[in-house]
């Protein structure tokens, strides 16, 4: 008889606690659901904030980094003397290693017509160091930009590069606009 009572009491406590916890969990879920727009988030570099510090190459949990250089062709001047491709103060415009900015030779220079050249990034070789971005943005149009490439990005819950970024250029953005490719000199 006493045992029965005890058992009933235990059941009662169990049931009421379960209900309470259930309501708490569902309530928390419901509140979050109300705020949620349902969209997924991905990480993105704002090229207007980026200061090409070089940490993208070293801070990513992936080696090589998921950040690569992208040429925003619309902004590119197709310069013969590309300041993202050639080192500062280069003497003659040939593709010898002594003249080039990229440490992994990931930029391909292709002749289009006099005096214009197209510059393509070979993503397999690019390590995201941002050296070319620096050259292009400081002296040229700034068409070389660093972007997180989502075929490589693991979409970590918190991006290790975002935490290290000195200029706060990496932010979560809705997954339907994963890239910010520059199309103008200043942000519109």
């Amino acid at each position, binding site marked *: 008889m006493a045992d029965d009572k005890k058992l009933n009491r235990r059941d009662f406590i169990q049931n009421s606690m379960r209900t309470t916890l259930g309501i708490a969990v569902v309530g928390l879920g419901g509140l979050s659901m109300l705020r949620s727009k349902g969209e*997924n988030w991905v990480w993105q570099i704002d090229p207007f904030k980026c200061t090409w510090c*070089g940490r993208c190459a070293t801070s990513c949990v992936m080696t090589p980094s998921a950040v690569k250089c992208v040429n925003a062709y619309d902004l590119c001047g197709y310069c013969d003397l590309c300041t993202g491709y050639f080192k500062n103060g280069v003497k003659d415009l040939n593709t010898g290693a002594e003249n080039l900015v990229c440490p992994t030779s990931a930029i391909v220079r292709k002749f*289009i017509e006099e005096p214009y050249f197209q510059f393509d990034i070979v993503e397999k070789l690019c390590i995201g160091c941002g050296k070319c971005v620096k050259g292009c943005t400081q002296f040229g149009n700034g068409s070389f930009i660093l972007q997180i490439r*989502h075929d490589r990005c693991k979409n970590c819950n918190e991006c290790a590069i975002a935490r290290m970024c*000195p200029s706060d250029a990496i932010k979560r953005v809705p*997954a339907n606009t994963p890239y910010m490719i520059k199309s103008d000199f200043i942000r519109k």
Partner: protein
Amino acid sequence: MRKYLTIFLFLIAVTYSGLVTGQQRFPKPEFSSGYVTPSPTTPEPRANLLEYADVVVLLVVLSVASWIAIRKRSRRAMLWLSVFSLLYFGFYREGCICPIGAIQNVTLTFADPLYAISISALLIFLIPLIFALFFGRTFCAAACPLGALQDLLIITPFSTPVWIRKTLSFIPYVYLALAVLYAATGTDFIICRYDPFVGFFRINATFNMFLIGACFLGLGLFFARPYCRIFCPYGALLNIMSRFSKWHLSITPAQCIQCKLCSTSCPFDAIEHPTEEQKSETTQGRNLRRFITFGLLIPVWILVGGYIGAQSHVFLSKANPQVHLTELLIAHPELKNDTGNIDIQTFLSSGKSFEQQVKEAQIIRHKFYIGGWFFGGFLGLVIGLMLMNQSVFRKRTDYQPHKGDCYSCGRCLKYCPVKKDGTVEEIA
């Protein structure tokens, strides 16, 4: 340099003399050869639909795991299910997003007006909790890739005394509270940052991540599932849920015959033994008095914890990058001349005034002060409840799993000689 500059200025002059609006320094040329500008490639992130597919897989795995734990009662089935989860959520999905890390996303949803958790991530956070409320920690048994990896690597588990386990079980709550505090203040996602196994799933990580992971796996050879038992903050939540689960795995399918065969089968020391014979009235009275005393002390614990948490806000907030940078500049103004310090140089060239930076850092620090009260208050509550819980003694007549600590892995099942119909298997 001079020569280069001249070339540069010349180029500007040349390109500029036309009908330029000053938008670009070197406007895009007009090609006469009919050249068409390519567009940069933009590989898409993982499709939203696939994220929902993950939710479905999680649901299926949890349902099957619950069925295995409660109906099928097979360790082997559970093992293979966990191998599947390890392959799917671990090596295929590469660890992100998991319910453990989703704690922080839920927190950030309420703390950051610009952020709201995605529905799929929210479901991944909620579903295992709901399942634990009904079927026990079947998520830990078969769906969690971190648990599965550690579970597979249990070689010689050693039993540890109750007091060590109970004391260690305080750590996950501290970790949970810290993770919430740091997520709410927008400082860091510490759970994800110190996830020990994600590097193995990706076969790519920094050296330190591998080192932490290897240490956990090494410890796990002898102390079963070390991450789950003494760190996992989600495990702390599941533990609470599972204590009140409606159905839970039981060692014996029928009546326990107290053969003691299962008593050492659990590598996690989660099997509770039958209690000793009836205690005297006086001990019971003493226990009751203790229980009540500890219960009444809970508000005191909350206040003390809250006070200490709030006092700790200064050093806790030093982990925030902005607070850290600001304090560094105040404490070591000479670092402003250190051209190698990227953070400082970037801040100085950003044009942001130092007063503004200090003001923002102070706002963050104040958040830590408020958060510190909650942080400490929560830990005080946990302490109070844990102490109170240690004064509760339930009478047990059988060998049964501790509903909070049991992962429902099913190892004990094969040790029980009792069959479903109540008959006892002969042991050779």
